[in-house]
Structure formats: structure tokens, C-alpha cells
């Protein structure tokens, strides 16, 4: 095989300001449900993106990336996997733009893909860790190493069990209702509420012990 690489180039790109993140997403809690004007703006951006506007794609990306990445990161507990999962979701969205039903909100659709993939990743990793521990009795495989996280809240959430932190991410980061969470996870709504309650208690305890 003597062929040379067909691709190259760097990956530099200007870092958008944090304010950009909140063009769509940084609303107060009571306004967190999609607004009609917001949806109309999103639809317009999707239409413009279909017609080739890079600016429209960029605005959709900047508006949606923080929640998508954070959801993937907090569920998967792996920054590399979160980047892959969120990036693949965006690539899929770009490819599907022409077929996308523009009456549907773009952000929730994309975040649902991210959440599903992150849950699959986390479950697979947990199972692999169990197999490794049961199989040869090695203490402390890589799978069980806690990630080094500077943010106290994120560290506390990452310390929750998968079922609890998934519910926390869906409820408090992505603003899903308990009914929507129950439907996605295939569990009763009451179970969602009890997991959220236990998770909040555990987070409060962890942050208190940590001086937060």
C-alpha cells in the first residue's frame, strides 16, 4: 500500500463566547419549555442550513452543542466518548437535513440521539467492568477509575449510579418531564421520581461533605 493520506489540515477554529451558548439555552427555569418564537427561529435556521447557509449551521451547532456534550459526558462519564457521541449526532443531523421534518424541534431530536447513545455506551462499559472483575478478579480496572473532574457539581453527578445520573441529566439539564423520562427508559414514572429524589439527596450530601 503506497497511497498517501487524502485528508489533512488542522482543526483550529475560533472559540465562541459563553454568551453564544445561551442564545437559545440560557433561559430561566420557568421559561425552559420551547417558545413558539424560538421554535420558529430554529425552523428558519434549519431551512437556511438546508439551502447551504454555514452561518445557520453554526448557530444551530452553537445553540445545541453545550447541552448535547454535557448530557453525553455526564451519562457516559468519559470526555472522549462524549465528544465522539455528540459529534456523530451532529454529523448525522447535517446529513439528514434534507429529510428532516422541519415541524419538529431540532434540538430535542438531536439530544435524544445523544442520550440514547450515551446510555448504551455507559451500560456497555459497566458490563465490561463487571465481566473483568468477575473473570480474573483484578482489583480496580480502568473502567472503575473515577474521572478527574474539577467542577464539584459535575464530580458529584458522575459519582451517582447510571440510573440516577441519567434521570438527573434528563430532568435538570435537558428539562424532560418525568413522564418523558419514564417512556425513554421503559420504567414507571414513580420510579423516575424516586430516583430523582434519591439523587438529589445524594448530591446534597456529597456537596455538603465536600464543603460545597
Amino acid at each position, binding site marked *: 500500500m503506497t497511497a498517501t493520506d487524502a485528508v489533512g489540515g488542522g482543526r483550529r477554529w475560533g472559540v465562541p463566547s459563553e454568551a453564544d451558548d445561551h442564545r437559545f439555552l*440560557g433561559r430561566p427555569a420557568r421559561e425552559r419549555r420551547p417558545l413558539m418564537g424560538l421554535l420558529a427561529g430554529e425552523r428558519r435556521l434549519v431551512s437556511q*442550513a*438546508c*439551502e447551504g447557509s454555514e452561518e445557520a449551521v453554526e448557530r444551530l*451547532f452553537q445553540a445545541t452543542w453545550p447541552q448535547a456534550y454535557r448530557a453525553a459526558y455526564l451519562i457516559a462519564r468519559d470526555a472522549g466518548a462524549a465528544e465522539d457521541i*455528540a459529534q456523530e449526532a451532529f454529523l448525522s443531523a447535517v446529513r439528514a437535513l434534507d429529510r428532516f421534518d422541519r415541524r419538529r424541534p431540532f434540538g430535542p431530536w438531536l439530544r435524544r440521539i445523544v442520550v440514547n447513545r450515551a446510555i448504551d455506551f455507559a451500560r456497555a462499559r459497566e458490563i465490561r467492568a463487571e465481566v473483568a472483575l468477575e473473570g480474573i478478579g483484578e482489583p480496580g480496572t480502568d473502567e472503575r477509575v473515577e474521572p478527574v473532574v474539577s467542577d464539584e457539581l459535575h464530580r458529584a453527578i458522575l459519582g451517582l449510579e447510571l440510573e440516577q445520573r441519567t434521570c438527573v441529566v434528563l*430532568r435538570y439539564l435537558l428539562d424532560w418531564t418525568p413522564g418523558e423520562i419514564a417512556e425513554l427508559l421503559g420504567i414507571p414514572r414513580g420510579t423516575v421520581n424516586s430516583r430523582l429524589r434519591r439523587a438529589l439527596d445524594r448530591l446534597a450530601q456529597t456537596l455538603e461533605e465536600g464543603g460545597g
Partner: protein
Amino acid sequence: MRSRELRRMLRERPAERELPARERAWEVVRAAHARRSPAPSRRRSFRMAAAGIAAVALIGLVLSPAGGAVRDWVEEVIDPGVERAAPSLTEVPGGGRLAVEASDGPWVVESDGSKRFLGEYDAAAWSPRGLFLAVAAGPSLAAVEPDGDPRWTIPTPGPIRSPRWAPTGVRVAYLSAGALGVVAGDGTGDRVLDRRVAAVAPAWAPEREDGSASAGPTPAHLLAYVDSDGAVRLIEADTGKERWATAPVRERALQLAWSSAGRKLHLLTAGGIRTYSSGGREVERRGSANGAVGTVMSAAPTGDAVAVISRDPARNRSHLSIRRGDAERELFSGPGRFTGVTWSPTGEWLLLEWRDADQWLFIRPASGKVRAVSRISRQFDLGATKQRFPRVAGWCC
């Protein structure tokens, strides 16, 4: 902790490595968007009318006598499959790596179950040692590394189907615009071998350890294919010289597969399996049995066994069998459709794709042991609007 406070903090605080990840991802997304051509804007009224017409047509179809098949399909999709299936693919039993064709494009699954999306391609085939994959990229053929990095791309007359890497690793055959083409493994020397071929994947003859093709003394790079008249042909890919050709086969050809040593070439048709010697003589013909029609076959990497999927449409049931000469043994059967079967590189495992249960079954032919993995569609779903059940395109070393 109060929920409002938690919500605010989660929204305000970036996660670890979020910003550099955003830079990298935006660059990739921007490039992907730049590569696609703009689509004309669509009218909502047209979409709604089209959706309405489609919905009415579907309802009519399902309620009509002929719509029974549609109803059956809807029912098949919810088949429960094997109980106690693992919810995720966490390892590939027997090791090795899988190339998987899914709705959004091909994936590589590592032996530990981790997956990598290769990119916006339509098909994939492993090189013999798993160093590269040949992929279809619209009207072009490309070779990429397993991490997705492209090595070369060549334009082709039309969309690529069924790329197949020769056992030597230095030739790739493919179908495009009704023709059979071949290109060197480094992307050079692309040429057409036959301009009128059937839509059946070509099959390279296995190589002996001395490097010669086992279907004849010399030279190597013997390629079997089905022409547009239904005749099976064996040619020397390097010279285009024909070794032999059969009479046209009336039944629709579905698949070609060489036995591991290259002594037999199997042709799966809508009417059964025909087996040819390496010299082109038909040595065996087996028709459909008990109303079940063969749909997919896979020759074992060692020995003469062939795994065959057959389907009994009257009973809506599929069967997986192993055939060795005249002997046949059923390994597994179930309701709905089995859509593919692939041998592991060592021949110790079979991977059965069970579309209607949304499962993959890893089966040990020697013991009949089954390990099932469920929710396969979701594990390869990036959100494509048109879904197809993930297909294993190759199980490599």
C-alpha cells in the same frame, strides 16, 4: 439541593474538555456541511399533502387483503427474540472486529464492543488483514483505515455496490453502473472487467499459502461473478482472460461463495444452491426444501461447511442450517426474518442477524450455544430518518 439551583448550575457550567471538543467538532461539522449540496426549499403544504396521501395509502394497504403482508411485517417487528439477551454489545465473542453497515453508514466494532462510525459511506469490506476497509462513497470507491482516515478515493461511473478485497490484498473488485470493475489496492489501475453483470457480489478465489489461487495452478487473482444473462464466470482479474463460464442459470442469482480451500464455488439462487468445481463443472444442486427458500449463505473460513439461511414465507419462519456435502443440520430457527449470517475468522462462531427480533445471535455451531444481543438497531442509530437493520459486512482478524 434545590432543583432550580441544580438546573441553573448545570446550564451555566461547561463540562470537562467541552470547549476544545466544541472547536474540533465544529470544524468536522462545518466540513461535512460544506461537502453537501444545498437542497431546494420545500413547501410545507406539499409535505403535508404527501404525508396525508401516504397515510391514506398505508391505511388502505393494511386494511386490504393484500395488506396482510404489511400487517405481518408490523407484527414481526415486535417479535420478542431470544430471552435473556444482553442489552448492549459489550464484546465480540471469539474476538476480531466487525464491519457493520447501518442506516447512517458503516461502523467498525472492536472486540471489546466499542464502536466507531466510519463516515458517510454506503458499504464496507475488510482488507484481508484488517488494515483497511474498501467503502462506497456515492459515485466513488475509497479505502479508509479502521479509524476512518481515508487513504485514497477513485471516481466510478455510478454508485458502488459490493466492494470485495482480494485475499492477496492487492486488488479490489466492485460493481458500479451494472459493470464489474477492479482496482489495485493502492487505488491505481482502475478498469472495467465486464460491462454487463448481475447485481451479485463478485467472489475472489481463496489463495494458497504459496500465493497462487487455488482454483487453478496459475496465476492468482481469480474472480468469480454472475453476468447479466445469469451465467457464472471465472476470470483472471489481472488479464481479463476468462477461465470458464457456465450456461445461464434461470433462477435469480443471489450470492456467490467459495469454499475455504477454493475447491468449490457455491451459487445461491432463488431456487436453491448450485455447487461448481474449481474447473466450472456443476457437481451438486440442492433445491428448496419443505417450502423454505434459501436467502443468504456464508462459507466457513475452514473446511467445507456452508451456513444457509432459509425462510418459509407460509409459516413466517426462518431457519439457520449448516450444510456439509449432503449432510444438513439445523442450528436455529425463529419467527420473522434472519437477514444475514457471518462466520468468525476462526470458524468457531456464527453471527446471525435477526431483524424482526432486533437481535444479533452469536452461535457456536459445535455446541449450539447462543449468546444474544438485543436492541441492535438503536446501537447503530445516529438518527437517520430511513432506518435499515444493521448488516454485518465482514468479521475480520
